[in-house]
């Protein structure tokens, strides 16, 4: 219950933000942090709770982004209606990737590499097919009406991403206390013993990847709507997959607040380096790489683990 109260308080506070802050810079910062949190939450479901490390979440993200954008551009469908469709498409790709790799028992590094290969296949396809606009990408036509999922200010986008992140929070909270969540963590900790205890390992992992992919696709659809542009590299490039996994690892794998902590810390670090070093290409990603190595080496439980450690000491 304490966790649920914290989630609701936090989201309530963010919801009140536009009433007090009108600076586009600050609102954009909050939106991008929540967006990174959403991708992290999605990755965390599969990797943090389920122990299946994906290196190819771009496959789900890009599918969500392209599904939403292509439907608007080619068929003129309303953008709000595109959102559930995008989520469904992402979930379908998740189900396909999951069914194939889990059916044949891919684990650990093999699973990571096969997901990366799926993302690359989709990137090459998106680059070569007319439907996705090829290398040029898709430009979503400007409409500037909230009925079309385009807002005048940033506040509208803030509420949308807040609702999506809240869904991610509730999902993680549910995983921490439900029977299904217990099955999933059992599979993570020891697949063979979980199977011996009667857990349907294949189904549990498949459900986790579908949930994770659906949430990631929602993030993709949001991205396409927020920036009104998508191309193969933005959608299916390795940068998205890295962004999805970095947050939870920095913040704390398999925890409810880990993805948020990680996303906020990385955003802060990113802004800091931008202030210190200017916009030199590559610098921020170079630092992200160093942070990733340092976290895995010295703080494998992330920032959340650090809190728990000191919390226990104080108690």
């Amino acid at each position, binding site marked *: 219950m304490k966790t649920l109260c914290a989630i609701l308080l936090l989201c309530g506070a963010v919801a009140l933000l536009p009433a007090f802050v009108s600076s586009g810079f600050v609102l954009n910062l909050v939106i991008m942090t929540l967006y990174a949190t959403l991708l992290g939450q999605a990755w965390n479901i599969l990797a943090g709770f389920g122990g299946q*490390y994906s*290196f190819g979440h771009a496959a789900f993200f890009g599918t969500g982004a392209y599904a939403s954008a292509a439907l608007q551009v080619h068929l003129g469908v309303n953008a709000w209606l595109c959102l559930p469709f995008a989520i469904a498409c992402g979930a379908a790709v998740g189900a396909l990737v999951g069914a*194939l*790799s889990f059916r*044949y028992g*891919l684990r*650990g*590094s*093999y699973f*990571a*590499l*096969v997901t*990366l*290969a*799926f993302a*690359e*296949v989709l990137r*090459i*396809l998106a*680059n*070569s097919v007319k439907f996705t606009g090829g*290398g040029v990408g898709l430009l979503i036509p400007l409409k500037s009406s909230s009925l079309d999922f385009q807002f005048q200010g940033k506040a509208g986008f803030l509420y949308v991403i807040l609702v999506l992140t809240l869904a991610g929070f509730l999902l993680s909270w549910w995983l921490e206390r439900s029977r299904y969540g217990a099955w999933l963590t059992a599979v993570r900790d020891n697949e063979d013993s979980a199977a011996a205890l009667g857990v349907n390992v294949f189904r549990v992992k498949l459900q986790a990847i579908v949930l994770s992919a659906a949430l990631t696709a929602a993030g993709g659809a949001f991205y396409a709507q927020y920036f009104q542009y998508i191309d193969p590299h933005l959608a299916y490039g*390795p940068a998205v997959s*890295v962004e999805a*996994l970095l947050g939870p*690892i920095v913040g704390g794998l398999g925890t409810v607040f880990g993805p948020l902590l990680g996303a906020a810390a990385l955003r802060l670090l990113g802004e800091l380096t931008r202030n210190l070093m200017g916009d*030199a*290409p*590559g*610098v921020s*990603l*170079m630092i*992200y*790489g*160093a*942070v*990733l*190595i340092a976290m*895995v*080496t010295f703080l*494998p439980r992330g920032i959340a683990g650090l809190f728990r450690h000191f919390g226990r000491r104080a108690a």
Partner: protein
Amino acid sequence: MLELSILFPSILNGLTLGAVYALIALGLTLIYGVLHIINFAHGALLMIALYGVFFLNAKLGVDPYAALPVMVPAMFALGYALQRFVIGRASHGKDENILLVTLGLTLILENFALFAWRSDTRTIETSYTFSTVAIAGAMISTPKVVAFFGALAATAILLAFITRTDLGRAIRAVARERQGAKLVGIDVEHVFAMSFGIGLACLGAAACFLLPAYYVNPQVGNGFVLIAFTIVVLGGMGSFAGALLGGFIIGVVESVGGLWLGESLGQIGIFVIFIAVLLFRPQGIFGARA
């Protein structure tokens, strides 16, 4: 549909490419066979080696083939240090951690290259860049022919080293049975670092053979990483003969696939092979059924 006069040179081209791929994959499979880790930074490290060859040529006028005695020891030293001081310390006994650490390493190397040398694609020009050799009526560029024989020679030296020397024996012992090797007095940490170093030395050699016929930019490693994994998985993880054969297969598939499907879509064949092999025959061509 495809005439033999186009297909034959394309296959030859694929074989020359495949020899270099095989050399890169040998480094990867050696690291995997001994340390049981997947070096995700393999492509990024190849990129660094390519830049090394490029700058030796551009700044000091060193011929890329003459750069071999510099690049091979330099990459070896880099690999030894990386395993000793970075990768070895981060594992905490989990596969996924190594993958994440080498991913972090990739991010650092790639973006360092982007920061220091910009994203321009660079090539070198030598007196033999545009010369060709006629093989059974097909014209193949000289650097590619050199790369083919050079990569084969490097592979032969590596195999002789692994099978004939004491260190090679120790490496095989550690690969087979870590605990047992420790018990008979082998310094396992040292062998780990040596294997990683040798794996990277292969990249140093590959870079010297590759650059005269290829190019370098900060992202060049991305393509190679999945290609090398595909070869290693196809040939069977840890199998040298498999890596060699896998390299040739992938080289030919890429070359012929590009001819058939066009530049952009041609790469897709490699990834499809990768996914298919991982799913249906993860032990590879030479691996025994698990």
